């Protein structure tokens, strides 16, 4: 450009959606970031987070250099002293070695946050690699408060989706059922596609206790009692079965619906593993399934049979019996959604083809989240919308080489993790997600199952992002050694030994697929102050711990080359052109389960224990869990813990994000903060009027512990609304940071702050996923 402005093509990684951008850089300074019109994800559009890059990079309150504390923990002023990167990293490495020697590698914890300011979704691979080499199975991430219920790790037992996320073809679908998912704001590049689908005639149906931005655009908004989604889905199944709207052929051919289950012990007839048995109704006798059977067999889906004196029923019969009492009238009582609306939704959903389903962490904030997701996903299965174009499909498994280094972990790591010790049998094999974080707090404070003595946390809202912030802060304060890296000062740093200034994603580099390009993302400007990209911290630490060889001798580009190997490309080849190398990912292939495996001559099937989609999970049964998604009330809740609601009568739900925030980040960026200056509590107008609360009043919100004593209190501004039920209040989470530029002070993390996680006792958990019950928490509010 003639005025000397250079255009650098890159992508925004403030969320997982990845939008192509053009950065305008002049004399080494970023002038602005815009959407790249040629990028296929976002077609020139860009959300507030990406557009605000400049204020994030040149933010005067960023951490500027590494620091160490000079006063003992507990002191209000840590006495921060500026140190060199060498001193910071040498100290961390030394402490890590010391802890490993004295307590074993599992006593050191690796914590990372979500993406956004930092590109955690990219560099976590190398962070994990470092932890694997060090030998600890204890990695903290965000899955336990984000997406367990959507992708990992339990659903694969039913669906064989290998931890992949749902991916919907919005050009083909005729019905979009969204649950607990403010998708129009949280996946910005999908907004125009979904609105286009709706314009073309596809129905948008949103299940959410809150009239979210997405619900506001829906053809049908089903406003339900928080945490009762499972009851709604069971009632949908009830109607679908009663009105015979299910796809019996699909159930018979591709699911374990016809498998005979013993009435006495809930196991499959003839024990676990193939052959299973189905009841051939043509011949009136059992027939083996390996898990397939010839077409002349006509397996019964319903009924009760006796084989060799053992009474058994097809799995589908058990499923149908489970949902039999779950009539729309029953569900109306439970969910507050009128029975007629439930019936109408069941019919529309089951008769519109193809119908898609998607959900996100709204479903993952309750003590019944796991089974809720199972029941929802099974709606797609029973109606034949599974893995068809425009139905429920999953992202394709095209990816970079796995460099997480699990092969370096000691053999016995699965049994050693905190997750395994806490009895989460389904989850223990997944080292990427150790949560819930209360396990870590417990281990630090009780030294059981073993002590956790040290932690390295990068880009994580340790103190504010997890339920029961008080206990987390207390635990962090007990650590022998804590190093925290971030862009800004965070509440957890008050008890850290070393603080590291991290670069923003814009100042760091990586390789990724930014459709339609495989791109080398170069830093668009140099890292400000003395900040370092998280990735550089990991590589430099690896050297000091003696893992230089396994870290490509510190050469980032060699590491990227290894990641790129499956594509037969190198980072130099990507870097050679401004946008990288055009790459057409394989078109999503549907029904690959039906292709015949040449070796066995049988269908490939599904990556589940039985090789079929699992209506009935015998595996879960054998691990001591329910094999079917039985209704269970959310805990706590007005029905499950009525005693807590006597003094705390309102139902508190959190979750929910507008597009300009990602979780608890970026409140310090003034352009974004002007979109919403104050933390809010959404309260129904009728309730507010009874409590003599007016718009903008400051409210004190209090919640109980399990035993009824006060767990914590926070302060928020009232926003009067009709978007929630009179008994429900909504508190968007993520508020701790101030915004100096607008004269807004830090809120803090604990009592008196605006941090909703300070209100939760963490002892109400989903026995399967460990998710903490946050969907329907008791609370009371009053004007101060």
């Amino acid at each position, binding site marked *: 450009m003639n005025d000397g402005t250079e255009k650098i093509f890159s992508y925004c990684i403030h969320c997982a959606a990845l939008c192509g951008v053009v950065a305008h850089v*002049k*004399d080494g*300074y*970023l*002038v*602005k*970031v*815009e*959407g790249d*019109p040629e990028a296929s994800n*976002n077609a*020139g*559009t*860009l*959300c*507030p987070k990406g*557009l*605000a890059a*400049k*204020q994030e990079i*040149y*933010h*005067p309150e960023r951490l500027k250099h590494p620091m160490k504390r000079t006063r003992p923990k507990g002191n209000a002023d840590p006495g921060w002293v500026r140190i060199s990167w060498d001193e910071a990293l040498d100290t961390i490495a030394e402490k890590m070695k010391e802890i490993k020697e004295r307590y074993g590698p599992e006593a050191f914890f690796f914590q990372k946050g979500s993406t956004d300011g930092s590109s955690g979704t990219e560099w976590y691979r190398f962070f994990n690699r470092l932890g694997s080499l060090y030998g600890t199975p204890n990695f903290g991430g965000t899955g336990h408060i984000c997406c367990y219920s959507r992708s990992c790790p339990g659903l694969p037992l039913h669906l064989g989706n290998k931890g992949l996320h749902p991916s919907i073809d919005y050009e083909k679908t005729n019905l979009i059922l969204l649950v607990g998912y403010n998708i*129009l*704001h949280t996946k*910005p*590049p999908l*907004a*125009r596609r979904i*609105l286009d689908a709706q314009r073309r005639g596809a129905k948008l149906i949103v299940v959410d206790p809150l*009239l979210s*931005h*997405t619900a*506001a*655009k829906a053809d049908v*908004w089903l*406003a339900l009692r928080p945490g009762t989604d499972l009851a709604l889905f069971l009632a949908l199944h009830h109607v679908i079965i009663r009105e015979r709207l299910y796809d019996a052929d699909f159930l018979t051919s591709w699911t374990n619906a016809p498998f005979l289950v013993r009435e006495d012990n809930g196991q499959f007839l003839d024990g676990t593993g193939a052959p299973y048995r189905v009841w051939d109704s043509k011949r009136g006798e059992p027939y083996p399934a390996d898990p397939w059977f010839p077409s002349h067999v006509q397996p019964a889906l319903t009924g009760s049979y006796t084989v060799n004196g053992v009474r058994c029923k097809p799995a589908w019969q058990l499923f149908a019996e489970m949902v039999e009492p779950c009539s729309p009238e029953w569900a109306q009582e439970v969910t507050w959604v009128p029975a007629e609306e439930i019936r109408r939704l069941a019919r529309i959903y089951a008769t519109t083809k193809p119908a898609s389903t998607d959900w996100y962490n709204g479903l993952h904030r309750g003590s019944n989240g796991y089974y809720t997701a199972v029941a929802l996903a099974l709606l797609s299965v029973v109606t034949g919308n599974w893995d068809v174009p425009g139905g429920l499909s999953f992202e394709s498994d095209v990816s970079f080489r796995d460099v997480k280094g699990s092969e370096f972990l000691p053999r016995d790591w699965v049994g050693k993790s905190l997750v395994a010790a806490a009895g989460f049998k389904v989850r223990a094999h997944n080292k990427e997600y150790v949560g819930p974080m209360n396990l870590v707090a417990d281990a630090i404070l009780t030294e059981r199952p073993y002590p956790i003595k040290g932690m390295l946390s990068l880009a994580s809202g340790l103190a504010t992002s997890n339920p029961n912030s008080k206990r987390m802060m207390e635990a962090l304060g007990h650590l022998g050694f804590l190093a925290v890296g971030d862009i800004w000062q965070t509440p957890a740093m008050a008890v850290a030994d070393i603080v590291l200034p991290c670069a923003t994603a814009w100042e760091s580099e990586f390789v990724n697929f930014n459709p339609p390009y495989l791109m080398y993302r170069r830093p668009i400007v140099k890292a400000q102050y003395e900040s370092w990209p998280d990735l550089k911290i990991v590589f430099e630490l690896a050297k000091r711990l003696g893992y230089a060889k396994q870290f490509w001798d510190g050469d980032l580009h060699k590491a990227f080359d290894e990641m790129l190997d499956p594509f037969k490309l190198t980072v130099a080849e990507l870097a050679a052109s401004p946008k990288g190398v055009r790459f057409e990912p394989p078109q999503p292939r549907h029904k690959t389960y039906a292709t015949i495996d040449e070796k066995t001559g049988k269908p490939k099937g599904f990556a589940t224990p039985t090789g079929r989609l699992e209506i009935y999970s015998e595996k879960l049964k054998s691990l001591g869990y329910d094999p079917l998604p039985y209704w269970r009330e959310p805990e706590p809740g007005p029905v499950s813990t009525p005693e807590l609601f006597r003094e705390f009568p309102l139902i508190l739900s959190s979750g929910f994000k*507008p*597009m*300009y925030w990602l979780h608890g980040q970026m409140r310090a960026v*003034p*352009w*974004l903060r*002007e*979109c919403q200056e104050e933390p809010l509590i959404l309260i*129904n*107008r009728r309730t507010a009027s009874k409590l003599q609360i007016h718009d903008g009043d400051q409210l004190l919100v209090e919640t109980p512990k399990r035993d009824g004593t006060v767990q914590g209190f926070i302060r928020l501004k009232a926003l009067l*609304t*009709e*978007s*929630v*039920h*009179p008994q429900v209040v909504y508190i968007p989470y993520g508020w701790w940071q101030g915004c100096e*530029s*607008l004269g807004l002070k830090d809120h803090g993390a604990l009592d008196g702050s605006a941090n909703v996680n300070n209100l939760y006792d963490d002892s109400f958990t989903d026995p399967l996923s460990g998710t903490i019950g946050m969907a329907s928490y008791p609370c009371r509010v009053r004007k101060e």
Partner: protein
Amino acid sequence: MMSRYGLAIDMGRCTGCFACVIACKSENSTLPGTFWIRIEEKEQGAYPDVAKIFTPMLCTQCGEMPCAEACALGAISIAEGGVVLIDDELCLCGDVKPCVAACPFGVMAVNKGKPAYFPEYLTPDERDAYEAHRHGAVEKCHLCYPRITAGLQPACVQACPSKAMVFGDLHEPGSELAQLVSSAEAKPLREDLKVDPSVFYVPGRSAT
């Protein structure tokens, strides 16, 4: 015929995400507290029969210009393309701003905040960009005049993740904008005022 640039905003597609607001900030470096576009959020009805309506509010580039009529200093005029511009050098009123009061849509802003978001930490381009916004001056949207005269779309239109905004030439009958207006699908915000705006709104759904 001369061009007349305008917008149609589809309220059925606007999700109130603020991308337009930040795109405007980034493009025009407006001062803290000064907005050339903002989102109005309204609820209609009562739970659970409630609708939420988001309305992006910006200068509608009225042909009748009630603001210019109110301006005794002659600072407001129509430029090429039908865009209403304020001449910063003539915009010299004291605290009372008749143009701001005359605007039926409340979309004229007075610079009264800090001189920049991070006044002590300006990048070289920010030094110039923020200096262009004088304290006390009245400002408003000009449809990103430098962009549209260079053949680009206004920053808000390009950024909008919902693609809720259509930019075009009202005088070009084949344009999507002209068709939305001539079919009366897109309407002025307040038709009754008869101020001849260039910005039109496609109504969204309201509460049942």
